[in-house]
């Protein structure tokens, strides 16, 4: 395994960083917050012009054919600025589920549309804070002639308002089916006022909506466990955004304390302050290292990839939380004002901390199948 970044990877990361510094500044993020947490102009550039949605989609399906590692590099950059676009839900959550579960007649078309930037997609996760977010699926689907009739509800769907397509797992007679439904067909959407305004969430209710036969995209009825493998990408992508956000939060803290003068000196010169920033860097570096290793393990099909991704989720959540908490403390009084950005990171940190399991449940899952360390 090689964890050096190739020239192409470095270029991609640096270009993404430069682009977002310009297009996802604090002012634009705040403008997007005021209009529902989505920046459609920025999303148009990212999806259509830059082609980021195709990052991990095979070239045969119109994508860039790159892997999990490149996906993490991009999501780190969007996370760094809490970029209000549905990239994570599209590339890390939806595309891998389509690749894993969709039938041959549905898959290439959907992937091609995602890769081209035509489709922002999301997934109805019945239990987003459970280790298995697909336990307790409420949706049911019944054949009604040649059409499907769907009912049920899902309490929280990420980036639902900006999605063009929603993937909905529903109970059939025996197993599960996967439905891909244009968001425009759905009337029961209720935006939630969540802690994090840069990552909009809405509830989704279907009251016997009827859809064409081809809205069901799976190969054949399946068990909820079939989601486990593609969900590794979603977990990895989430951790990547968290690591990026932690770095962005440390950067803005360093910028602030470098200018703040008390007792006639920069507060960045106090050892109590320096050591806390240095400790943050250590935590972030640790999380980033495991993130990169886990991404490479996933691409290489390594056995320990699952435990590593779970572990990256733990370290990334903790690094982001600590970075946000320290950002507010080190900003002092202004850290508690709406005007300064640290609270945006605190919000993201808290909302994501319990996605796909708390730290304790993630650790328990690793402990349950603890890989040998000296293997």
């Amino acid at each position: 395994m090689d964890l050096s970044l190739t020239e192409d990877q470095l270029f991609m990361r640096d270009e993404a960083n430069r682009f977002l510094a310009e297009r996802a500044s604090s002012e634009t993020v705040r403008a997007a917050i005021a209009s529902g947490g989505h920046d459609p102009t920025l999303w148009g550039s990212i999806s259509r012009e830059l082609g980021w949605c195709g990052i991990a989609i095979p070239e045969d399906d119109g994508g860039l054919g790159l892997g999990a590692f490149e996906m993490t590099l991009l999501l780190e950059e969007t996370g760094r600025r809490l970029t209000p676009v549905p990239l994570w839900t599209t590339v890390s959550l939806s595309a891998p589920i389509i690749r894993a579960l969709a039938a041959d007649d549905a898959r290439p078309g959907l992937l091609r549309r995602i890769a081209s930037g035509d489709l922002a997609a999301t997934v109805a996760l019945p239990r987003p804070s459970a280790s298995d977010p697909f336990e307790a699926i409420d949706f049911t689907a019944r054949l009604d002639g040649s059409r499907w009739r769907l009912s049920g509800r899902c309490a929280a769907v990420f980036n639902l308002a900006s999605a063009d397509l929603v993937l909905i797992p529903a109970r059939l007679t025996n197993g599960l089916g996967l439905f891909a439904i244009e968001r425009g067909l759905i009337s029961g959407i209720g935006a939630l006022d969540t802690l994090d305004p840069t990552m909009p969430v809405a509830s989704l209710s279907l009251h016997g909506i009827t859809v064409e036969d081809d809205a069901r995209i799976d190969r054949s009825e399946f068990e909820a466990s079939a989601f486990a493998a593609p969900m590794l990408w979603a977990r990895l992508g989430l951790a990547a955004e968290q690591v990026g956000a932690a770095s962005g939060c440390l950067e803005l803290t360093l910028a602030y304390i470098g200018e703040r003068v008390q007792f006639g000196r920069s507060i960045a010169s106090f050892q109590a302050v320096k050591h806390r920033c240095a400790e943050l860097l250590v935590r972030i570096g640790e999380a980033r290292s495991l993130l990169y290793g886990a991404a490479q393990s996933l691409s290489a099909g390594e056995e320990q990839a699952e435990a590593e991704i779970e572990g990256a989720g733990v370290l990334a959540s903790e690094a982001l939380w600590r970075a946000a908490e320290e950002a507010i403390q080190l900003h002092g009084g202004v850290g508690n004002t709406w005007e300064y950005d640290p609270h945006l990171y605190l919000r993201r940190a808290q909302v994501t901390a319990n996605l796909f399991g708390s730290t304790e449940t993630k650790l328990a899952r690793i402990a349950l199948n603890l890989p040998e360390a000296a293997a």
Partner: protein
Amino acid sequence: MSEQDLSAFRAEVADWMKAHLSGRFAVLVDRGHAGDGDALPDLRMEWERELAAGGWTCPAWPIEQGGRGLSISEQVAFQEEYARAGGPGRLGHIGEGLLGPTLIAFGTDAQKRRFLPPIREGRAFWCQGYSEPDAGSDLANIKTRARQDPETGDWLVTGQKVWTSLAHLSDWIFVVARCEEGSAGPKGLIFLLMPLDQKGIEIHPIRQIGGGSEFNSVFFDNARASADCVVGQPGDGWKVAMALLGFERGISTLGQQMGFARELDLIAALARENGAAESSAISNRIARAWIGLRAMRYMAMRMLADGADPQAKLESLGYKYQWSHWHRDLGKLGMDVLGFSGAAATDDPRTEKLRQLFFFTRADTVYGGTSEIQLNIIAERGLGMPKEPRGNAG
């Protein structure tokens, strides 16, 4: 080297270790590491000669200096396989890993001819005379003096070194001393090679919190280094001393991690056997240790990747802090897994190992740059924060 060749090389090392770390050497498995460094010295000296006979001492040295000229990935593979087999702590490490590369870079031809072969053959053991009672974190505050004997050109050394690992088992010491009267800080120092067995040198072991004595105080009273035993120029000792520390970093890290992995596996196995793992608090701490070790491994790989990623270079400044705190936590975890049975001495080698680990890992966050110094380095060199103000003394 291809992946295939590298696997073959790994297999060669593993086979050799299996064949040779057996019989009378079998008792050395997992012995002699930090915290246990003074264990079984005579047999470990023989083990060094066994390694030498197999051509496994100094394999990273260039071929013309008697090494194998191994590539970085081969060195990593060697270190990992040595550790995976439970290879004992290396008495020859200071000579092989620190002094040898320093002489190869800075030594005269005569010094290389004289000192390198005995290191390679496992016949000469070295220790490192850097720290002093008043020169710890502030290493440049060295007070040991070296004065040149005008008749012979030899250097006469007076002063005290401390925390000198394995001085009592060593033949030679390299010493950084102040050779220019009135100089301060990193200026005016000299790097000398000195035999320990001489009038004017006394070695006093230091009893550590774990009961063992790996470290020593070394007292010098007009002890002699012959004129041809200066490395570099008098006055340039700091440059040589710092270059030597540079050789220590990186490669041996993954071997060290393999040792950590064996410790973690031991703790996890004990927790399953004695039921401690049934507590989710304990099993989650074990999972956390596993995560931390994976993160450490990937951090080391990012460091060794030698790429152009400035992020990796920045974050590698945190590596010492990361591993030392991880290891210290592991030491505590081991004792918490043992519960009261860890409090009482036994003849169970696994329990004894964890008791040593518990005490020695307290030193991990101190030696080789304390955590506080590490955080200063990260903040100042990495994050560009203002430097600590210095006192007047140096």
